[in-house]
């Protein structure tokens, strides 16, 4: 047996948890080991002091002092319950608001994009040049240019540039 195991055993012996065999083995080691003899004496010294701890009495008029505090507690109970749970609810509700806000941003209705007339025609799989095709085929060059200018101005009524 080494000194480490002996220390463990004599502490267990102090608690009355040692078998007879372990006791004999321990005594055999301690008889031959000065270090363990000293160590056991030191522990015994400590245990003696601990066991002699004086337990003073509680201060006088224990119940008389306690009774008004019970009633005082009754009065403060709703406020304390709020304090206990209400204060915990603040960060939780902030988290909830944050979560809802991000959910609305991600899954909420997206703003509809405005398309130009030619864009609409493209989405409808139609050529934006279809209306002007007949003009381009039939008229002379100057007329074609004038008609194309007026056609484009009709498409975008707000963008008409004043003549100089």
């Amino acid at each position, binding site marked *: 047996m080494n000194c480490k195991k002996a220390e463990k055993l004599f502490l267990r012996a102090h608690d009355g*948890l040692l078998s007879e065999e372990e006791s004999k083995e321990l005594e055999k080691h301690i008889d031959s080991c000065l270090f363990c003899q000293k160590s056991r004496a030191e522990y015994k010294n400590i245990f003696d002091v601990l066991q002699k701890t*004086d337990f003073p009495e509680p201060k006088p008029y224990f119940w008389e002092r306690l009774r008004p505090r019970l009633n005082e507690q009754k009065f403060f109970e709703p406020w304390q319950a709020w304090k206990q749970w209400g204060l915990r609810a603040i960060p939780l509700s902030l988290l909830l608001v944050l979560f809802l806000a991000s959910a609305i941003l991600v899954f909420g209705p997206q703003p509809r994009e405005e398309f130009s007339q030619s864009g609409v025609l493209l989405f409808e799989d139609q050529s934006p040049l279809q209306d002007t095709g007949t003009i381009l085929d039939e008229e002379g060059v100057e007329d074609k240019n004038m008609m194309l200018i007026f056609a484009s101005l009709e498409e975008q009524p707000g963008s008409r540039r004043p003549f100089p």
Partner: protein
Amino acid sequence: MDEKDLVQKSQEGNEEAYGILVETYKTKVFNMAYSLTLNREIADDLAQEVFIKAYYALPKFKGKAAFSTWLHQITMNHTKDYLRKASRMRQVPFEETKGDLSTQEDKAEKREREEDLAQKKKIVHEAIVTLPEKYRIILSLRDIQGLPYEEISRLLNISPGTVDSRLHRARKMLKKKIIPFLEKEGGRQ
């Protein structure tokens, strides 16, 4: 009126019945708080707070365990909370203990022995309050209060094997802290 009736009446809000329970258990609750704090003033405050807590928790007490066990559990948890807060703020005051006097022994010899014991107690108790909370608690429960392993295991909600190993470590830590002082103060046997 037996304890069960007293508990039942207290649950119904009868303060007189609760007063009898307080008188019965105040010393036990106080001693447990004292063994963990080693300060009479604080232990008294903690004992009062434990009885207030217990009074308001009584409606939840179903009587599965004994009332004393339930009360001890509250005391343990409340004192642990106090120690945790106090150690965070480093405010665990230590109170010097005094030995009791006997009149039949030789006065000088007795005084010398008492002074020696008081000095040793002071050193040991000062060392205990500097131990980490879990070691301090287990040492107080076992070596100051003398509670059996099973009760400590139940109170702290740990296995008896953990009680054994933690207690072993606590005792080793305490010895390491105080032996140099005890030798210096002439505390050797």
